[in-house]
């Protein structure tokens, strides 16, 4: 065994397409580093962001990582669409099967774990504490550790592009394909460790936000006075803390198979591959609701604000949210109706799946009746909402259709299924996150985003989505399965794959519009400055603060007497609650230890992938060491005096 385990130069040499990708990653990283050096921003970056324990800053970092990974996952999508548009009949396309498999595996893993998740956590971090009228999350340092563990996972996926290869198993990594016998390379190991490291970060973040919601709300804000978004985050985080340990354990068992020759999921030796499928989806289905619930919460805030009206049926919305949270634990088997579980089991899980449509439908009706007798302003966030209703309803219908087991038999693992879950996740999760970004952007950065480019992005995404995925629904009915790197001529699939490819390009133009939107908005930031702190005629506590929110969030702790407290006071529906006098507050000092732990976790995971055992030990020791340093540090908070707060507060208002 050499110093570098099984890592050799061969891991770098993988042909021209991979070479281009390697250069892109390398020069991209170097370019960013050079730019920061040129702008002399390293110190600023270190003090203001990298070592910050302020949830708002950590949230922004989550969003930046999500944006980078969205581009990576999007390039994967374009590569897949290009391959399937040309690889018909005798044409094998431009990607060899192994590479195509890495691309679709990478796309799935990245979009779920490293785009949808950080978008959700980013938005939660920047806005949830402010919304709850508190100064920070319950455990600021843990929050930083969560972020860096997540980032270490993302970095590991990017590293797999440059050194070695990623898994070729599909993002679900079903054994025995993902076992050593069929996947002896480093790909599955990259997959395992990227998910393990980021998954632990997610679990810690879940604990953090549950405690924040339950224990840190402003005085007077009872659970039933919380903004709807907080309820949906609570549901989502309850699912995180119960579901992610299942993923951790499942991947742990696969790790034992791969590293120590055990037989949990192997084809022979007493292994049971069906148990992996079972456990994977016991995490995997709650995961869908982990992502979609907070997006539902965003829509509840957006629709109420832009209809200038109270959210309709708040109590039913809370019940629906909690019903979805609980039911999402009872449906996972619908991911494998075709595995021969028998009619009773299949029917039970099919019916449980359909039942979820009831609370979801209630939510949609309540949003519609929030608009009813309101004054609807068709801003960018509201458009994302309307696009969501249109697409999500179609996708939901496809979902309920597949919840009928014998109907599922004919659509299982077909492109119809692929179209279904993309509809749910793109319209349900991404559109929700995009609405959130447009809605809360001024609160975070102090100026509004360009509406013109926001609306263009909306149209490109929506039309592009329909162009890319309606053909996939049809292809499912034409008997096309997913993950085919080539297919026979004469099945009539090719024209639809070409249309889907065009759709993917239109979606890409939507991402370009979003980049331009960001550029234009930053360029015109003086013109678009939000001076009032309340650009949308908002309802909840975050709009009572100046934009951008000061680092201490609230100079005086707000007292809440009613739902939508800011709106109620603004329009004289509730008396101005007497405010506390200024009191000195404690805020967490910045700490670089989260970054150290994340870096060590990356080294640990990378070394595990390549069997570099000394580095495994070192990474583990540094992680533990950093934790001990933190535990022994008693001086973790700085105090801001009441006078300073009063001075800041009167200066900003």
């Amino acid at each position: 065994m050499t110093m570098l385990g099984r890592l050799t130069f061969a891991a770098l040499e993988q042909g021209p397409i991979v070479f281009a990708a390697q250069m892109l990653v390398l020069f991209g990283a170097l370019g960013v580093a050079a730019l920061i050096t040129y702008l002399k921003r390293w110190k600023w970056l270190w003090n203001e962001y990298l070592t910050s324990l302020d949830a708002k800053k950590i949230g922004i970092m989550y969003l930046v990582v999500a944006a980078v990974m969205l581009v990576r996952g999007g390039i994967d999508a374009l590569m897949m669409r290009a391959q399937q548009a040309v690889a018909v009949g005798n044409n094998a396309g431009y990607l060899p099967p192994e590479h195509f498999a890495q691309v679709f595996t990478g796309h799935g893993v990245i979009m779920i774990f490293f785009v949808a998740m950080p978008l959700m956590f980013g938005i939660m971090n920047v806005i949830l504490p402010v919304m709850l009228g508190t100064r920070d999350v319950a455990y600021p340092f843990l929050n930083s550790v969560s972020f860096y563990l997540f980032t270490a996972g993302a970095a590991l996926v990017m590293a797999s592009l440059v050194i070695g290869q990623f898994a070729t198993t599909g993002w679900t990594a079903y054994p025995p394909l993902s076992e050593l016998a069929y996947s002896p390379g480093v790909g599955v190991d990259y997959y395992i460790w990227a998910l393990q490291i980021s998954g632990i970060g997610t679990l810690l973040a879940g604990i953090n936000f549950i405690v924040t919601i339950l224990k840190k709300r402003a005085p007077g804000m009872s659970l039933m006075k919380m903004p709807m978004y907080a309820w949906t985050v609570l549901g989502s985080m309850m699912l995180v803390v119960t579901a992610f340990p299942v993923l951790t354990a499942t991947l742990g068992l696969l790790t034992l198979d791969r590293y120590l020759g055990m037989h949990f999921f192997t084809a022979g030796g007493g292994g049971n591959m069906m148990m992996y499928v079972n456990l994977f989806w016991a995490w995997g289905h709650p995961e869908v609701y982990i992502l979609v619930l907070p997006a539902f919460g965003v829509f509840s805030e957006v629709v109420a604000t832009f209809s200038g009206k109270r959210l309709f049926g708040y109590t039913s919305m809370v019940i629906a949210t909690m019903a979805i949270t609980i039911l999402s634990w009872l449906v996972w088997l619908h991911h494998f109706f075709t595995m021969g579980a028998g009619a009773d089991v299949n029917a039970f899980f099919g019916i449980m799946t359909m039942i979820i449509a009831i609370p979801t439908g209630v939510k949609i009706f309540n949003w519609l009746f929030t608009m009813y007798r309101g004054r609807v302003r068709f801003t960018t966030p509201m458009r994302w909402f309307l696009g969501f209703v249109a697409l999500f309803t179609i996708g939901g219908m496809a979902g309920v259709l597949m919840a009928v087991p014998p109907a599922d038999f004919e659509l299982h693992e077909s492109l119809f299924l692929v179209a279904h879950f993309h509809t749910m996740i793109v319209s349900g999760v991404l559109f929700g996150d995009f609405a959130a970004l447009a809605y809360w952007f001024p609160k975070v950065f102090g100026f509004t985003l360009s509406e013109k480019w926001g609306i263009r992005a909306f149209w490109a995404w929506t039309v592009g989505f329909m162009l890319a995925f309606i053909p996939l629904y049809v292809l499912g009915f034409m008997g096309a399965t997913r993950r085919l790197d080539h297919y026979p001529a004469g099945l009539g699939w090719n024209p639809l794959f070409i249309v889907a490819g065009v759709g993917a390009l239109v979606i890409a133009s939507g991402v370009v519009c979003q980049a331009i939107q960001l550029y234009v908005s930053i360029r015109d930031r003086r013109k678009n400055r939000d001076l009032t702190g309340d650009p949308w005629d908002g309802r909840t506590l975050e709009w009572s603060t100046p934009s951008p929110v000061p680092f201490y969030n609230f100079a005086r702790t707000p007292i809440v007497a009613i739902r939508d407290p800011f709106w109620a006071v603004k329009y004289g529906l509730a008396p101005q609650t007497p405010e506390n006098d200024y009191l000195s507050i404690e805020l967490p000092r910045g700490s670089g230890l989260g970054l150290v732990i994340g870096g060590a976790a990356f080294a640990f995971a990378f070394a595990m992938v390549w069997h570099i055992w000394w580095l495994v030990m070192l990474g583990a020791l540094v992680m533990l060491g950093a934790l001990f340093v933190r535990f022994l540090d008693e001086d973790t908070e700085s105090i801001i005096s009441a006078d300073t707060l009063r001075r800041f507060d009167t200066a900003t208002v």
Partner: protein
Amino acid sequence: MNRYLFLIILGIMASIALFALSLGGSHIVLFSPQGYIAKREVALMALALRLMLIIVIPVFALTFAIAWHYRAGNAKARYLPNWEHNRLEEAIWWAVPFLIIIALASITWTSSHALDSYKGIATSTPALEIDVVALDWKWLFIYPAQRIATVNTLTIPTGTPIAFKLTADAPMNALWIPQLSGQEMAMPGMVTELHIEADAPGAYHGLSGNYSGAGFAGMQFTAHAVSKSAFGAWVAETRMSTSTLDRVTYASLAAPSENVAPERYVLGDPGLYTWIVMKYMTPPAASSTPASG
């Protein structure tokens, strides 16, 4: 334009759908199921879809109508900013989806039992057993009673129930002949079942539904449904094949290969299928499979 947003989205959706359907044309195989099971599965989809449209069409209409009528610019629309609750209305939208789901649930329960993959098709014609082995990366079909086997091609008699017994000597796959029935997974060391029946003669496309590695895309075959007499002739012809499938020839067949051309064999070892399944049951040390990892 703002206000027509929803209608525009619907219009684009419909036109892309129509365009896609026209491109697909006669190739939309699920619109023309040719087997006993597939016909019932597709009819079930149509029924479920109709039930769901009861709720989906009003949602679409309401979304558009409400968003349009209550637009900020419409001075005639009532504005009640603090109206937030109505017991009756909320009861309606808890109840209506609930009733539809009850209807769908009862359909789900009965259809799951009626169309259980493991359930034989009840006719007077005795079923033909075909043992299916998913290999890296081709399909092996063994006809135990006829003492023949085929690779990447399947021939079945029409009007006869086919009892597939599926296994794999490779990662998981799923057998799918869309016009004849839905999928069933094929897994090493296990036997799953799938019952189908072809109503009319024809050549139906078959493939795998579960990704199994580099050669997965090449696991495609044609299922030829022929009359009972033509099937008898085909069996007799296959019995004349010079290739014999026994454990020795199987070993080379089972080695990974991609885009394999159709092939026919005389079955030399009647115990082959059982051996393929059972070898995963032996302790890893004694096993000759790569599964011991």
